[in-house]
């Protein structure tokens, strides 16, 4: 019996699962690097986050939504778990990680209807929830000196910057890590923050496989660079240089992996650039004037709320 279906009779080879798989592969260099630096604790933390995210999505789907479909098959819960873990300090108690996963999946994703329906980035919602609920645990970092496995507690570069300025020092007086230290990962922080180069490798992989387009990463990093550059030129005593800003904190991770999340970013090219510029500027403002040392998570969440408005910008129509 012949099959009759409406055109088109071709479907592209990509699928949601393949796209999610590409993102996981892109996160691999950063994960391997954090294993190398933090050892087994990185593995345990990431594993806990991933397993709890997958379990919560499966459980909510099966027992709350009463659906027969296995939505976990598309691996998006795994990515939420990995990204959440990449945002946390490695000393965080595991039960907090599970709570964070529950908030990320249960509240930020499933309560909106599952994949494709959420407004806010689930991993960031989980992270911000943990940050606001358990501020002390979420801001204790281990620092690695010269790639040795011995770790001593210390602040992240941004934390160091904020504290020093608040205590009256000027920027040239603070011993900020060098750019090469930050790029290669000789600093303290969460797994996703420390090695810029590992993240950039992942980002290039995503660009080559056409999983993401260049618009969001370039506009986020570019606007951060330019905006912080203006601040630096005006007052180098109170502002760090722009290179420091784009290599520190969650800037790279946020620009390449968090802001480019499909569901929570705009649909049109023009919209993506506006989104990226908004994130960049808000991040710098929070870092400079806000109480928190790191502003990327909040900036992304704020812009996520504006995405439905940005989506009203229509793409260029043929013939107009």
């Amino acid at each position, binding site marked *: 019996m*012949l*099959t*009759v*279906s*409406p*055109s*088109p*009779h*071709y*479907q*592209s080879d*990509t*699928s*949601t699962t*393949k*796209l999610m798989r590409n993102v996981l592969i892109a996160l691999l260099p950063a994960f391997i690097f954090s294993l190398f630096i933090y050892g087994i604790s990185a593995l345990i933390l990431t594993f806990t986050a991933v397993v709890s995210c997958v379990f919560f999505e499966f459980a909510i789907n099966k027992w709350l939504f009463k659906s027969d479909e296995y*939505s976990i098959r*598309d691996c*998006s819960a795994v990515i939420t778990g990995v990204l959440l873990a990449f945002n946390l300090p490695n000393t965080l108690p595991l039960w907090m990680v599970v709570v964070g996963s529950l908030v990320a999946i249960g509240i930020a994703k499933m309560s909106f209807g*599952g*994949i*494709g*329906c959420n407004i806010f980035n689930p991993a960031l919602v989980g992270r911000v929830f943990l940050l606001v609920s358990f501020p002390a645990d979420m801001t204790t970092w281990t620092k690695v000196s010269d790639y040795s496995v011995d770790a001593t507690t210390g602040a992240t570069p941004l934390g160091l910057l904020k504290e020093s300025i608040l205590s009256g020092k000027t920027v040239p007086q603070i011993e900020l890590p060098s750019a090469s230290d930050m790029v290669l990962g000789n600093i303290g922080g969460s797994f996703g923050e420390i090695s810029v180069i590992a993240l950039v490798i992942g980002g290039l992989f995503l660009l080559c496989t056409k999983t993401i*387009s260049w618009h969001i990463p370039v506009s986020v990093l570019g606007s951060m660079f330019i905006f912080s550059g203006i601040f630096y030129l005006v007052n180098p005593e109170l502002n760090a240089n722009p290179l420091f800003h784009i290599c520190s904190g969650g800037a790279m991770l946020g620009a390449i992996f968090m802001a480019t999340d*499909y*569901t929570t970013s*705009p*649909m*049109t*090219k023009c919209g993506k650039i506006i989104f990226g510029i908004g994130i960049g500027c808000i991040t710098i403002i929070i870092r400079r004037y806000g109480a928190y040392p790191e502003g990327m998570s909040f900036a992304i969440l704020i812009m996520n709320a504006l995405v439905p408005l940005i989506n009203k910008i*229509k*793409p*260029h*129509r*043929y*013939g*107009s």
Partner: protein
Amino acid sequence: MKTFTIGGVHPKENKLSSGKKIERSPLPEKVIIPMAQHIGAPANPIVAVGDAVKIGTKIGESNGFVSASVHSSVSGVVEKIDMMPDFAGFKKQMVVIANNGKDEWEESIDRSSELNTNLNFTAEEIKAKIANAGIVGMGGATFPISVKLSPPKDMVIDNLLINGAECEPYLTADHALMLEKADEICVGIELLMKALNVTTAKVGIENNKPDAIAHMTEVAAKYQGIEIVPLKVKYPQGSEKHLIQALTGREVPPRQLPAFIGCVVCNVATTFAVYEAVEKNKPLIERIVTVTGTGMQNPSNLLVRIGTRISDVFAAIGGVPEHTDKIIAGGPMMGKAIQNIDAPIMKGSSGLVCMTEQEAHRKKESNCIRCGRCVDGCPMGLEPYLLYALSKQSMVNELIEHNVTDCFECGSCSFSCPAHKPLLDYIRLGKAKAMQQLKAEMAKKQQSENNKN
């Protein structure tokens, strides 16, 4: 390399029959010729059951301004005139002619294969010959060419564009024609230039046919004013509006004809048919059909008489391949899946693509992840994900606001969706509802204007 600027996708080309020489498909026992093979009013049959006809005898007269005439493609006797199903199963009026095997042609037709380069015709004479030969757009749109060559008086034509893009995967009919009949095509272009009173013409050919580009460039050098332009390979480059943008940089405004911005587009197969009609007095009675598929032993470009049943075309090449689950009339992006294999080949049938079990079925649908690939792919700059959602909710006013009527159903959105959502199906439904509402509004407006007067 020139291309269109908005959207576009890159489906697998699968030009399996590329480079194959045109083969003549054996003449069938009978032909079934539909009266409606074109856009516009169906032709009126002017023969009766029992009449003897020759190859090229007119059997259907053009009915109105936008219509075309239809001719017999075999010699024999008219067996039946009845409503019969086309390949989608819809009943249309068709004339069945039994082939007497004697291969008798109308006397006026010049059957020699020599190249005629006589350009001593006036524009009106050329248009009349084209109308008489029943020539319609053979790229698939099937718009009557004589109507295209007579645009409204206030529209001045300064550009003749010839469509050699053949952007649909699998199809190579135009490619084969450009390799074997380049001179005839060029003469056809000269005739069309005369009919439109222009002095230059551009032929757009996609870059996956380098031999055709080289050959056509070589041959076109012998003629005046014909420029061959290679185009980047991107679907849907062969769409009229996008060809115009790539070759001239102009964009056709919404709801307007290409003639509005001074352009007329004609397919290469149609141009060849114009040559045959004007120089050889031969009406449109046969065309090249690419019969292909990954499961096919010998994908080829066949010269088929109009009205040959699809089952007969396959029978002559050894039958439908095993494990074929879907047969498409046309290309895989915009072609229609065949329901009735005894339906005839028509003037616009450019290909028969056989899809195997693995290829024929739609993949499982999942949630929209709002990745934006549909928006990136749409060549008209629409937002398919939004039109899909609005159509599902039957929000017709919003659909019209978001320009659903601009959509020409190229399929780029459904093709690029990673969640395999049937975007184009719902957009088609929405488009139908929107057209219905717009028509009703126009009628109401017309009525209220009539009442005022």
